[in-house]
């Protein structure tokens, strides 16, 4: 048995995986569509260029599988940015250490001002977001924040720097349910280029984060890559490989996938690889055909039209009314964002849109009392 995902990951070569995806044929795609249970090789076929002519069939199957498992409902959540302090240099991020923005970490009073706004929006599921600044934003800080907000939310998720197993385990009793840690890219060399400085430059520590979450007994974890840094097909294969590994090993945890496309921000990086809307739909459907149970989440990075149309194709969770700057809801609405939002509609507008499409917006799907 492998000790961590790194042991399995190291047996793969990026080039070989990449070539094998681009060599998939129409026959491979047809076989993948017909299979009852789909393998990683089937997943490669479904994300390959050869699958493009089969997109409509993929969409029909993806919708059926999603309906069966999740029904006609959509989970709604909202990010709460706590801090933009960061010691990492990331070439694509508005909070990068070398980016000249005013740094801020919310105080307890400020957090509660933000929470008050989120509660008026109707939210019961909040996603806490920070940069990586271990001198001020650390496990003890997170405990303080969780204590503060636990009475106000049924479901608390976190997207912060990777932590050690003990830290994760210690946060669960404080009400932490879900942790999202995106690998950004599984291309080891390019990862180094995009993360030249800071703790985040350690590729392996990040790669093994999900194992630490599994060991800690986290209820749910989210995986993903930042689309635009490297070939999205190869990166998505490694995401699927990671998911497959984790599901078998940490069978008590739930999983969700995200597929953020690089968005513009002040002074930012141009994407190396552009992913079209058609390709993103292909990826969403391929993930669903590969795994009927995984949650698929889409943020306000994506456009109004795109979000309205992927609802019935496989996505199961979405954010709405998001601000990506600390204090963005109440304290300092004008401060600099991590990235630009595309879909700026309010949660109520999103809920109305969902209902008009025959979907029930779900604000609450967990209870702190169940922990």
């Amino acid at each position, binding site marked *: 048995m492998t000790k961590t995902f790194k042991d399995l990951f190291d047996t793969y070569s990026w080039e070989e995986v990449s070539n094998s995806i681009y060599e998939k044929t129409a026959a491979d795609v047809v076989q993948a569509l017909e299979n009852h249970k789909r393998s990683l090789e089937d997943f490669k076929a479904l994300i390959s260029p050869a699958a493009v002519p089969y997109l409509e069939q993929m969409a029909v199957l993806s919708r059926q599988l999603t*309906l069966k498992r999740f*029904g006609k*409902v959509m989970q709604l959540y909202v990010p709460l940015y706590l801090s933009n302090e960061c010691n990492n240099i990331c070439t694509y991020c508005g909070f990068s250490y070398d980016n000249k923005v005013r740094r801020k970490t919310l105080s307890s009073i400020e957090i509660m001002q933000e929470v008050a706004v989120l509660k008026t929006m109707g939210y019961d599921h909040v996603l806490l977001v920070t940069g990586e600044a271990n001198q001020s934003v650390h496990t003890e800080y997170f405990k303080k924040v969780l204590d503060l907000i636990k009475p106000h939310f049924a479901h608390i998720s976190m997207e912060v720097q990777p932590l050690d197993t003990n830290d994760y385990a210690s946060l669960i009793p404080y009400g932490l349910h879900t942790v999202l840690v995106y690998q950004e890219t599984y291309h080891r060399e390019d990862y180094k280029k995009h993360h030249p400085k800071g703790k985040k430059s350690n590729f392996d520590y990040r790669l093994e984060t999900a194992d630490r979450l599994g060991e800690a007994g986290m209820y749910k974890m989210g995986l993903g890559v930042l689309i635009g840094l490297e070939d999205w097909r190869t990166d998505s294969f490694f995401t699927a490989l990671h998911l497959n590994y984790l*599901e078998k090993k940490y069978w*008590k945890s739930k999983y969700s996938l995200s597929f953020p496309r690089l968005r513009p921000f002040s002074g930012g990086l141009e994407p190396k690889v552009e992913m079209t809307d058609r390709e993103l739909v292909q990826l969403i459907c391929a993930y669903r055909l590969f795994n009927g149970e995984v949650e698929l989440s889409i943020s306000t990075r994506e456009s109004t039209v795109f979000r309205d149309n992927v609802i019935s194709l496989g996505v199961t969770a979405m954010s709405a009314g998001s601000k990506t700057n600390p204090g963005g809801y109440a304290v300092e609405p004008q401060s600099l964002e991590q990235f630009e939002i595309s879909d700026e509609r309010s949660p109520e507008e999103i809920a109305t849109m969902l209902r008009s499409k*025959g979907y029930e917006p779900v604000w609450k799907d967990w209870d702190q*009392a169940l922990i």
Partner: protein
Amino acid sequence: MFNSRLFTGTGKFSSTELMEKALLASGSELVTVALKRVDLNDHKDDILTHLNHPHLNLLPNTSGVRTAKEAVFAAQLAREALETNWIKLEIHPDPKYLMPDPIETLLATEQLAKLGFVVLPYIHADPVLCKRLENAGTAAVMPLGSPIGSNMGLKTIDFLEIIISQSNVPVIIDAGIGSPSDAAKAMEIGADAVLVNTAIAVSRDPVLMAEAFKIAVAAGRMAFEAKLGQINSYAVASSPLTSFLDD
């Protein structure tokens, strides 16, 4: 106790209004609701508001818990907030296939029965576990027909028949019933009731499908009570082979 042997669920509907209409059409008198989905502190909770009919009895379920300890705590919360001592015990530490944990379920049933709960545990179609649950004081058993939400029908039918033949408590077939014919079949083999959610909620017309299930469950029960004719897999010889013994 109930006029209807069709129990229903509240998940996966495209709106709470549609859920209410479908549940009314189903004739169901016992409807299960996930504690994690309702706001127990809010008397105007959207789901609960739409379940507010005199004939609809609420059956809170513990979906989301992973251990007996969490389940017992959740059941106590439900009893307080929803004023019912009935609890559908769902302990599935596996969030992918939602397979029930037999060990934790048995433990929780023992504890909850002692605390005065009417316990309805969701379990695998395991005849020995059913007997152990009886000893632990369960009010009924709820074995699965196939994985929850799968619509695959009665894949466990051979084990369900053993459970039904041995049981001293009501047997409610819980998960995997995908069509009215599956429900009718479950009733024909002697199940006391079935619980259906996904097959109704996710159909093109949940209200019509709810009514179809209502009729199927009633028909299946009538067939069970009327005693189905024997199905013979071999011909009965008109001149019996052993008739010479009578000579």
